[in-house]
């Protein structure tokens, strides 16, 4: 069964699923910054543990659903299908040599290791492997291939492209096992979405988003399992991974070092900015965009509609422009996002707004639409990012409603300072 056939779209909410498990698109800038933030909060050892566990859990959910949908029953079928799914997602091509007791895995092209070396390798030396996602995936695949309990297998990476080894290598060994939790699947997600409502410029936003979602259908890993698109490396990735790592890290800081909460929340919001600047920015400046939508006008209301459409096109949910006064105020609402269903299912009702990614993203959208001279073909460099986001703050964002807190929808208000 082609992997493409396992895709589903909840069109009115711009949410994408693979065999009923949510997935979204993120670029390597966001992925690397996200993982770095988790390690900053927890330290390298606990950071790697939390990231690997989150990936393990997320891929168990996904692969369990994929195997059931595809009718894959034997270990060989399941391992083969799993590695194809992983490559299709742009996560890389991993070879598994495993049994029910463990084994080994290797790859010369994993998204995280490859992208880390490409982005940072010339500037920073790294001692720790970076492919916790692949480690978690390898463990989940092995367990499910041999019908083992959750956490019956653990995987550790001991060589990595990012640490200047020629290949990434993993060892898989017996774990302790625990009960798995019910997946956060489409049925669960549907419990936490509000009816889709129309925003400003809705027809244009919806048309562009629809075109982008259609374009993304053809985006999948190449022969190395990597996706180079829009001048970034893209992955189809699992919100379960992002959510479990972020919320475990934030909760840990809240429990053990409350003075650090402001910093960790700011960093997770910053990750949203990194995503908008790099992913949205590169999409907007790409020839694909120019071919689908046309050259950029640079007019703020146009750019805001484009950014909102991109968010939907990447599967982030039904974001809409509720209010927009250029240079003064932006109100983005979301009748769905990929953070709330996970948070509500895992942790219950939040005491405060917890949609950090979208908080950062909406702030960045305001800056991008107001400040960037799009018609002058800006170079989206680190230096430009610093120019835009550092220095005297021009805007602030407040999340005034949050689905994690039990509100019907989420609302993000960006005001000029």
């Amino acid at each position, binding site marked *: 069964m082609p992997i493409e056939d396992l895709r589903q779209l909840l069109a009115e909410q711009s949410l994408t699923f693979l065999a009923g498990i949510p997935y979204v698109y993120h670029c390597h800038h966001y992925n690397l910054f996200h993982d770095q933030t988790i390690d900053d909060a927890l330290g390298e050892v606990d950071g790697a543990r939390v990231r690997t566990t989150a990936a393990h859990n997320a891929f168990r959910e996904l692969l369990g659903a994929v195997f059931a949908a595809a009718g894959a029953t034997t270990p060989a079928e399941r391992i083969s299908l799993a590695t194809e799914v992983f490559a299709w997602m742009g996560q890389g091509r991993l070879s598994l040599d495993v049994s029910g007791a463990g084994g080994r895995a290797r790859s010369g092209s994993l998204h995280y290791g490859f992208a880390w070396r490409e982005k940072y390798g010339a500037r920073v030396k790294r001692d720790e492997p970076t492919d916790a996602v692949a480690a978690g995936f390898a463990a989940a695949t092995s367990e499910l291939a041999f019908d083992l309990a959750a956490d019956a297998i653990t995987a550790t990476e001991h060589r990595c492209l990012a640490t200047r080894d020629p290949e990434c290598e993993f060892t898989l060994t017996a774990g302790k096992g625990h009960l798995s939790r019910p997946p956060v699947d489409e049925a669960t997600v549907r419990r936490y979405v509000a009816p889709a409502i129309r925003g400003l410029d809705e027809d244009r936003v919806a048309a562009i988003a629809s075109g982008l979602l259609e374009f993304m259908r053809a985006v999948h890993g190449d022969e190395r399992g990597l996706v*180079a698109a829009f*001048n*970034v*490396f893209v992955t189809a990735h699992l919100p379960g991974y992002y959510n479990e790592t972020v919320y475990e890290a934030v909760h840990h800081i809240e429990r053990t070092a409350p003075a650090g909460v402001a910093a960790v929340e700011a960093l997770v919001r910053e990750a949203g900015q990194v995503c908008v600047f790099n992913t949205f920015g590169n999409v907007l400046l790409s020839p*694909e965009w120019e071919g*689908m939508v046309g050259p950029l006008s640079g007019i703020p209301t146009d750019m805001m509609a484009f950014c909102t459409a991109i968010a939907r096109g990447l599967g982030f949910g039904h974001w809409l422009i509720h209010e927009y006064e250029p240079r003064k105020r932006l109100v983005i609402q979301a009748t769905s996002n990929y953070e709330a269903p996970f948070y509500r299912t895992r942790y219950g009702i939040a005491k405060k707004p917890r949609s950090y990614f979208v908080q950062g993203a909406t702030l960045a959208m305001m800056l991008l639409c107001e400040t960037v001279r799009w018609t002058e073909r800006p170079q989206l460099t680190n230096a430009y990012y610093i120019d835009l986001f550092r220095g005297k703050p021009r805007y602030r964002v407040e999340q005034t409603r949050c689905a994690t807190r039990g509100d019907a929808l989420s609302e993000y208000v960006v005001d000029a300072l």
Partner: protein
Amino acid sequence: MTPPRSALTREVTCIRSLAWRTDLPTAIDWPRLGAALEAAGLARRPAVGAMQRFATTGGDQVSLIPTTGRVQFRVHYTVPERERRFAAERLFQLVVRALHRS
């Protein structure tokens, strides 16, 4: 032969030196240019809206947008960084020669 409006320049890119561009007059014969690129050994890939795409056997890509004249050269990410500019220049020359033939 209609020369490019601009020389080969570095495109907006987040991955170092992978994407380059030039601009052509919109009034050129784009179907003939596309045919000339195919005759030169590039494989035509599915279009994305108004954007036409061609790929080399090595995975490099040339994208043409006739409505604006934009041409992007995308060097495959496996090309070592020190060689990417040269790879882009070869793609640029390919388009120049194809323009000449068309």
